[in-house]
């Protein structure tokens, strides 16, 4: 780059043309990504925002500027209840995946000595992800059902007189399936940051007389924060956007925001669903912004 810059300056006439093309280069380099993001991310989001103001009936949408879709969405107790319910799922699942994910990553990073073994065990963690999301979710049904594995085993060994009903088609089932599905999204970024921690920092802390807990609390966790933040963004956005897990594991008894949108879309009420999508997008962006305010990912990476 510097060589290329120096030469046109030295040469007199073609300099301007050369400099011009050099100024363009960074834009050209950024262009493919910008085009892809623009065409496949920004444009659709813009369209969703535009459509959310349209009118509709069972057959078609009519370009318009109505706020009724938002009034209907925000004015109904169903929406508020559904959002609260979704946030509740997000909170519980986040806490559980963070706890489990951190300890799995901690074990992998500090208790496994060889890098090769670490990689092997990390790959083992990802093995379940070679099957589809849906299959991993649905396979819980025969396990948790009224006559499922857990219940029939417990009844047979005499621990419980009759099957536990709340194992399946309940909020418990939804949270369980989500934790199962999303923990790896927490493990990976945390494992990544833990691996970057300079081991000499821990030695220094020990030399200074810190106990195991103090090392953990004052050295490892603060340094793992960026990983936790990234994992949190993954898990929270996944849970906020989930509809299939909630539908299948709650037996249709529980609602989530995305499920509400899916219902609206299957009834072809696209503008209503679009309004909902915009509200959800704003909420999730605010949550992500909040996370980034607490933890500066770029600074600490």
């Amino acid at each position, binding site marked *: 780059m510097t060589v290329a810059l120096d030469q046109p300056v030295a040469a007199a006439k073609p300099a301007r043309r050369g400099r011009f093309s050099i100024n363009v280069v960074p834009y050209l380099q950024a262009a493919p990504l910008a085009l892809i993001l623009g065409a496949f991310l920004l444009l659709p989001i813009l369209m969703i925002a535009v459509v959310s103001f349209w009118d509709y009936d*069972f*057959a*078609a949408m009519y370009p318009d500027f109505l706020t009724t879709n938002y009034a209907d969405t925000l004015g*109904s*107790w*169903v929406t508020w*209840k*559904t959002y609260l*319910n979704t946030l509740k799922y997000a909170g519980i699942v986040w806490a559980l995946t963070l706890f489990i994910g951190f300890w799995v990553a901690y074990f992998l990073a500090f208790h496994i000595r060889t890098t090769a073994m670490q990689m092997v065990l990390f790959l083992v963690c990802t093995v379940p992800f070679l099957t589809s999301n849906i299959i991993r979710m649905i396979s819980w*049904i*025969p396990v948790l*059902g*009224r*006559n*499922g594995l857990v219940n029939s085993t417990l009844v047979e060994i005499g621990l419980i007189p009759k099957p536990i*009903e709340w194992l*399946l*088609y309940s909020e418990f089932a939804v949270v369980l399936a989500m934790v199962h599905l999303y923990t790896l999204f927490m493990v990976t970024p945390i494992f990544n940051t833990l691996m970057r921690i300079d081991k000499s920092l821990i030695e220094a802390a020990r030399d200074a007389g810190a106990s195991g807990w103090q090392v953990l609390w004052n050295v490892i966790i603060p340094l793992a924060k960026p990983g936790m933040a990234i994992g949190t963004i993954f898990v929270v956005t996944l849970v906020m956007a989930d509809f299939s897990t909630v*539908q299948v594991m709650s*037996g*249709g*008894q529980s*609602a989530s925001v995305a499920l*509400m949108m899916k*219902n609206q879309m*299957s*009834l*072809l*009420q696209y503008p209503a669903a679009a309004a909902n999508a915009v509200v959800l997008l704003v909420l999730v962006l605010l949550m992500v912004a909040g996370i980034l305010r607490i933890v500066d990912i770029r600074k600490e990476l």
Partner: protein
Amino acid sequence: MTNTTDKKTGISRRSLLKTGAAAVGLAAGSGAITGFPTIWAQNPITLRQFGTGVSNLNAIADKCKADLGITLEMTATDSDAAAQRAVTQPDSYDIADIEYWIAKKVYPSGVMQPMDVKKLKYYDKIVPLFITGKLTPDSVIAQGTAPHTVGFVEAQDAKTFAKQPTQWMTMVPTIYNADTLGIRPDLVGRDITTWADIMDPAFKGKAAILNIPSIGIMDAAMIMEAMGNIKYADKGNMTKEEIDKTIDFLIKAKQDGQFRAFWKSFDESVNLMASGEVVIQSMWSPAVAAVRSKGIACKYQPLKEGYRSWGGGLGLAAHLKGAELDAAYEYINWYLSGWVGAYLNRQGYYSAAMDTAKQFMSEDEWGYWVDGKPAKGDIMAPDGKIMEKAGAVRDGGSFVERMGKVACWNSVMDEDRYMVRRWNEFIAA
């Protein structure tokens, strides 16, 4: 050429076809007319049919190709998408295979054309349920969107439905059935006789209803009325107060833990029943058969209040004309001529022209599926698997017993949007 034939009345079907064939032949530039029925094979005609999936069966397309040489391109969607497509993309299909309540929404928009009953060879064989609304002369006309109320228009270009049968039929019925509750006879532990039984506290946490608003609300209405909570003027067209009352009742039942789940798809309903999670629920007849095929007892229980019924038919797109229109009539006439009817009857549905279907069914099949008699031999599914063992009797009995006890038809309400909004509240509650 085709236009001239269209205007003549009383022309025989064969000569109509020949003229149609000539038109096609000329259009293709071959000039040579070889006789029926290979005409369509030589000048390939493709009809694009879309619909709600129940009757979009590959076996029918294959047989149609073999018998008529007409290629059927079938697309299946769910009912709401079908309604939308019918209206917004009228050029994307030639034949709409939709339910009658969808036709009530779609037909007035002018995207379909009526059929001339004079060109329907088997018109007088169509079950009177679709003509007059009465299966037998003394039947009571059911509530909801009864097919005969949207089955005819006054004139070829009319958009409003006729009060009585006319020369112009909006849709030729193809497939219909009567739905009720499915039960696990081994687990319910008592006789189930009424829709109200699903709310029995004994089945707390073991009942399910379907989460498709337009159908679920009808099941709920049957339950409400059976419990004596309300008397609807028309279950198929509730007022806002009636909707409120029904949904409030459902919400209360849900919060009391009466329901185990709400199912949306066919296989969900099968799994709920087969696993014993649920012992009584709304169900569709093929789902009952699917549970039974796993060797698990399941009964499609007739109830004293009657059935909730549904029906679909074939309608012609407005843009069809000339040879394609002739081919469409030919296809519909073939549809009613018996083979398809027998195929559908054997799956536990009913065909529109029972008399023609009978010729394609064995005496035992007809006895089991339609007359409600005990099967003499094993009853086979169309794919050759054993469906019922010898001696079995169809739940609900004969065709007349089942279709004669229809209490309401699937329908579209004037307060549709309000109902859907309240239904979503029920699911979120």
